[in-house]
C-alpha cells in the first residue's frame, strides 16, 4: 500500500474510533452560531446582516480548535518520531493526514453550514455561496493551521499560543470567505471571490504540507 493510502486509512480509522474528535468541533460550530441570536437580537434583519461573519468566524474557530490535537497524540506516543525517521519525503504522509483531518472535521462543518445559515435568516439563494465558500475555505484553514500545530507540538499547553500564531494567518481566508457571502447577500456576483478563495486553497495545499513537514522536523529538534 502506498504511503498516502496507508496514512489516509490509518487517520480515518483513528477518527472513527474516537468519534468525539469529529463531533466536538461540529457541536462547537453549532453552539457558537446559536449563541449570537441570544447575545444580539432575534430580529431577522440584523441577524441576516451579521450571518456571513458569524458563521464564518465560528467555522474558523472550530477548525482552529480541532487542530491542537492534530499531531499531539502522535507526538505523545512516539508515532510522530517514526514518521520523521521514515525514508522519503514527508509531503505525502502529511498531505494524507491533512486530507483525513479535513474529511473528518472540516467537511461536516460545510454540510451543516446551510442549516445554520437558514437559522440566521440568510436567503435560500445565498446558502449556496455559503457552503461553496466554506468548501473552498475550510481545507485552506486546516492546512494553514496545521503549520501552527506542527510548530507548537512540542510546547505543552500550546492551545492559546496556537491561536495567537494562526489567527493572523487566517485573515485573508476569512475576508474573502465571509466577503463572498456578503456579496451574495447584496445580490452581486461571487464567482470572482470564490476564485480567489480557490487560489488561496491551491497555494495552501501545494506549499502548506512542505511547511508542516518542516515545522514537525523543527519541533523534533532538527
Amino acid at each position, binding site marked *: 500500500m502506498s*504511503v498516502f493510502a496507508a496514512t489516509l486509512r490509518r487517520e480515518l*480509522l483513528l477518527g472513527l*474510533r474516537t468519534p468525539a474528535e469529529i463531533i466536538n468541533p461540529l457541536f462547537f460550530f453549532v453552539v457558537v452560531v446559536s449563541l449570537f441570536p441570544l447575545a444580539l437580537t432575534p430580529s431577522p434583519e440584523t441577524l441576516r446582516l451579521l450571518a456571513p461573519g458569524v458563521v464564518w468566524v465560528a467555522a474558523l474557530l472550530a477548525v482552529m480548535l480541532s487542530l491542537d490535537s492534530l499531531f499531539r497524540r502522535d507526538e505523545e506516543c512516539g508515532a510522530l518520531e*517514526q514518521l520523521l525517521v521514515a525514508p522519503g519525503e514527508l509531503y505525502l504522509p502529511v498531505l494524507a493526514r491533512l486530507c483525513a483531518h479535513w474529511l473528518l472535521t472540516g467537511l461536516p462543518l460545510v454540510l451543516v453550514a446551510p442549516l445554520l445559515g437558514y437559522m440566521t435568516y440568510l436567503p435560500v439563494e445565498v446558502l449556496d455561496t455559503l457552503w461553496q465558500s466554506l468548501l473552498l475555505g475550510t481545507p485552506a484553514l486546516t492546512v494553514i493551521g496545521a503549520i501552527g500545530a506542527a510548530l507548537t507540538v512540542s510546547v505543552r499547553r500550546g492551545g492559546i499560543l496556537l491561536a495567537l500564531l494562526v489567527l493572523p494567518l487566517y485573515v485573508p481566508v476569512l475576508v474573502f470567505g465571509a466577503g463572498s457571502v456578503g456579496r451574495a447577500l447584496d445580490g452581486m456576483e461571487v464567482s470572482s471571490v470564490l476564485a480567489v478563495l480557490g487560489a488561496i486553497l491551491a497555494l495552501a495545499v501545494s506549499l502548506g504540507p512542505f511547511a508542516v513537514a518542516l515545522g514537525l522536523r523543527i519541533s523534533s529538534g532538527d
Partner: protein
Amino acid sequence: MSPTTPTSPILRVEQLGCERDERILFRDLAFQACAGEIWQVAGANGTGKTTLLRILAGLHGFHDGRVRWQVPGARHASAHDQILFLGHLAGLREELTAQENLRWLCALHDQPAAMIPAALSAVGLAGYDDAPVATMSAGQKRRVALARLWLPGKAVWILDEPFTAIDATGVEMIEQRLRKQAAAGTLVIYTSHHRLATDTRQIHLGGQGA
C-alpha cells in the same frame, strides 16, 4: 557512493558534541562502526544516550561535528531507508490494533506488511493481531514495537532501551535476535543498562567520554 567492503565502517562519527538546557552532554565524541557489530551506548541517566541515538537517526540536528553514513544499498546519504529506529516510546496508537499500527509503520518504512503476523508470533503475541493496543500490558506493547525486528529490509538498527518492561525470557529472545542479525551483517546500536553477553563494543557517555 564508494564501494564498501565488509570491514570498512558504515558509520563514522567525528567530533560530535551536543549541549542541552545549558549543559554539555558530550563533546568530541568519535567512533567508527562496521556492519555486523553490536554497540552499546552506556552511561548514567541524563548523560545524553537518547540524544545520541536521535542524532544518529537524524532526528536531532542541533549538534557540532559530523555523522556520516555509508550504508551499502542506501538511496540517500542520510541512509534513512536503511535505518530502523525504535525510540523509548513504542510509537503505537492505543486506538488501533497491533496489526493496524504495524501496517502503517510498514508502509511508511518500506517493509513487507505480509510478514506482520509471523513477526507478532515471533515476539510471543500470536493471536493478538486484532487486539487494540489499549488492552495490552506495557510489556506487550513493547513487544509489538519490537516485532519490527523480525521484519526484513534494514541494515542498521538503532534501539533506545529495547529491554524496558520486557520479562526475562523476552530479554533472552531479543538478545538472540540481535546476535543472529548482527552475524548476518546488521549494525546494532542500542542503549540499555543491560549488557549483552557477547563481545559488545561500548560507548561510555558522561565523565570519561568515548
